[in-house]
């Protein structure tokens, strides 16, 4: 109910439907608390704004209503009574402002405590996110090494279970931010920063890098899929498997093209000899919603366009342009499409 008020308040100005990436449409506890706080702040400060503007406009209009004001020409000061009365009003207004601000500090601190790092529950699912220049390296940490999942640019979280994001960066400062789920946290090369949230309803939520990180800062998105426990478990078990073996001859040629050209230099597909760590892990590429860090939806056409000329889609990104003949590209696409 309350975020309808928030959106109502703000939306009548610019009628934009909530995109998949909006802080006004919370889907997790952190974002919900912050949206509520935003509603309280907006209402309270909006009232103050209207009062101040009302007084300002009234004093401008008062001049026209011809009220006989006190003669100012000689003393340039109103009568002492007016001064004292105005003094009391200004004093009261200042004290009221201070009280309101102290109240705002209090509710802000209480909301902050609820979502702060110290409130991270012990049984949180820990995900390590490492920012690279213009893509996200995601690793699901687990005490049992065989359960560790390595993926990129897409995170699946179970609804109802707390999730902790441990972030760092490999090169410059990035900032991990999913508006629907929680506030942003900078990823800084020499530090590990943490934040947490607990999804409250399933859905697909888009997030974007929020700290300027170079040429393709605009195309560094991450998708978070919140789903119920069962489907999350299914997804997790699928991610643990190695890559599917190529069945048809075209897929086998595709795998050979992948391993013999520059693809294997940077990317890794578990189950094959490609183990490059400097680019996203492609073992389950076909299961992802988007490719190139949220730039293009994941379908064959986009994959072909992206592989043949990445510089046109994301100018300046670090993927090499490899001259592939069509008899190499089609089999490669066939092979990449089976990597569920």
């Amino acid at each position, binding site marked *: 109910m309350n975020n309808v008020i928030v959106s109502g308040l703000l939306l009548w100005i610019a009628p934009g*439907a909530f995109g998949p990436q909006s802080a006004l449409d919370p889907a997790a506890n952190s974002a919900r608390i912050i949206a509520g706080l*935003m509603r309280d702040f907006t209402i309270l400060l909006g009232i103050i704004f209207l009062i101040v503007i009302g007084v300002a406009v009234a004093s401008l209009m008062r001049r026209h209503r011809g009220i006989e004001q006190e003669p100012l020409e000689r003393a340039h000061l109103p009568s002492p009574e007016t001064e004292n009365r105005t003094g009391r009003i200004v004093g009261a207004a200042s004290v009221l402002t201070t009280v309101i601000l102290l109240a705002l500090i209090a509710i802000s601190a209480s909301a902050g405590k609820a979502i702060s790092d110290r409130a991270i529950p012990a049984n949180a699912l820990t995900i390590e996110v490492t920012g690279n220049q213009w893509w996200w390296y995601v690793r699901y940490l687990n005490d049992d090494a065989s359960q560790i999942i390595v993926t990129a640019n897409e995170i699946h979280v179970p609804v109802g279970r707390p999730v902790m994001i441990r972030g760092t960066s490999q090169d410059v400062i990035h900032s991990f931010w999913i508006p629907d789920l929680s*506030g942003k946290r900078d990823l800084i090369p020499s530090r590990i920063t943490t934040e947490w949230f607990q999804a409250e309803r399933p859905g697909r939520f888009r997030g974007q890098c929020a700290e300027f990180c170079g040429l393709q800062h605009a195309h560094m998105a991450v998708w978070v899929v919140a789903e119920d426990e069962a489907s999350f478990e299914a997804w997790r078990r699928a991610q643990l498997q190695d890559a599917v073996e190529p069945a048809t001859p075209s897929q086998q040629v595709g795998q050979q093209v992948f391993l013999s050209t520059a693809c294997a230099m940077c990317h890794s597909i578990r189950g094959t000899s490609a183990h490059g760590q400097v680019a996203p892990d492609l073992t389950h590429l076909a299961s992802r919603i988007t490719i190139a860090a949220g730039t293009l939806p994941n379908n064959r056409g986009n994959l072909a366009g992206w592989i043949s000329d990445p510089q046109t889609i994301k100018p300046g990104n670090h993927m090499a342009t490899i001259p592939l003949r069509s008899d190499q590209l089609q089999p490669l696409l066939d092979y990449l499409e089976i990597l569920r």
Partner: protein
Amino acid sequence: MSDTATPPYGLTQESAEADRAALARTWANAKGLLGWLSVTTHQAIGRRYIVTAFVFLLLGGIEALMMRIQLAKPENTFLAPARYNQIFTMHGTTMMFLFAVPVMEGMAVYLVPIMVGTRNVAFPRLNNFGYWMYLFGGIFLYVMALTGAAPDAGWFSYVPLAGPQFSTGKGVDTWAQMITFTEISALCVAVEIIVTVLRMRAPGMSLNRLPLYVWSMLIQAFMVVFAMPAVMIASTVMLLNDRTIGTHFVNPWEGGDPLLYQHVFWFFGHPEVYIIFVPALGFISAILEANSRRSIFGYSAVVLSQVATGFIAFGLWVHHMFATGLPQIGEAYFTAASMMIAVTSGVQIFCWLATMWTGRLRMTAAIHFVFGFIFIFVLGGLTGVMLSSVPLDLQSHDTYFVVAHFHYVLIGGALFPLFGAFHHWFSKITGRMIDEALGKLSFWLLFIGFNVTFFPMHILGLNGMTRRIYTYSADLGWGSANLIATAGAFLIALGGIVFIVNALTSMRGPVNAGEDPWDASTLEWAVPSPPPNYNFVYPPVVSSLTPLWTDPALRTVVTGLRTDRREVLVTGVTEAEPQFRYILPGSSIWPFLAAAGIMIGFCGSVFAFSWYFVASVLGGIGFVGWFWPRRPVEVAP
């Protein structure tokens, strides 16, 4: 009515006329190009600061329009990513370092000496040197930018992106060295303003009779003195040395820390925005006092609030870094400090509202801009209170909500008062009245254009649009709001053009503004418009807070200052009792030569560290020539 028409009591007409002729000769600027380069009168240098800063405002505005065109629709290809990053960095750097601070200094260099009743700033040649350093800095940035070395890491250039490994080429070095130029000029003006206001006031102008605008400039000058060294370290000692001689201030793998750069930069960064904002408070006080026919309500409350703003401004820089995961207790303190500074602004707004309520307002163009200030700045201040709360900042940091906030407080808080000041003091600076109708038209264009541009950005920010992205995909729903913002940006540009046309056409009229068209209260309205180089034939003796209202004829004046050399009166700090006379130097080419020498060295130091020694040697020669004694050396008492 003042010192031109009837000579002060007891002095004959002829002696006043003789003194004026002698003063005109002594204070005349040297002729020719050499004379133009070596001028040291504060009116000429003040005008140059304002005109140069206005040119940079137009350049920044063009860059803003290019950004808005690129963001008008999703997946737009007007600007490539590399070009867009350069444009938004140049926009931010130009507006903050090359327009906002210098124009406030220019107005101060022009107005403060007249308002405190003296003839020039304390160190005239340092004033000349400061202007040239500022001009050379601006030219250096734009020449390097147009020849391919434009900075592209943002106006605060966070490391490691701006570091040696991830920002190739000379762009970020240019940005770092340009800051050295503009901050040296800011420090020069700040020291001059402090010494002028504290040591060279008219007799009788004790501290509680100082005009509110002069109080604002004094507080701003102190903030500049304490804030600028921090950016000197952040830009030159840390970033430039890291990039050119391989020090490890911010290299995370060698013990350095990127957050150290952020702390040092924002320790300067937040006082910087108050350095831009506090002079605007002075403009508002001056305009309101003249046009509401009464002295500002709560003089001491306004002054104490501005002093408090000056102090608290140094205590809240970490609210720029809430998202970096700092310890909780630190964030709580900075939330409280960031909110408390709203109290000081609130008190001043209440005092101005009380002045407007109990005064009799004249609806001049300047008052329109004051109303625009109140509307836009209060809204920006309230979003600032929202941003100072840690949870809200985590959702809106580095998004278009923040872009909307700081444009509201910077354009609303500094540009609108500045345009109000242009309309208020245009008659004083040029001697001609600016057209009021065109002034009000430019106000309404700017006001409506501003709100149409920047209010939708609040919604865009909350809908997830992050800062500094050169494009966005269509399915995110940001297209319509961005189109509205681009339309508003062109409306602002139109308002700017109307103001320029208004200023230029008004310049062509006859010089008939007279000394005091607004019947205002402070001393700058007691000198002819445009004021001669020596301002007062006989500096006034002040007996009240509003000298021209309580003693219009300024009957008590100071006599005895020699007219055959440039002399001013040095007075006490608190009660301004005359202490001794002080001889000011005339025109001198040496500050220009020193500035040129240092410029050559600093531009070279971007390419090789050894050029700092060239800067030291050439600058040293310039300074030695600067204070080398002229004949006659001995001063007749």
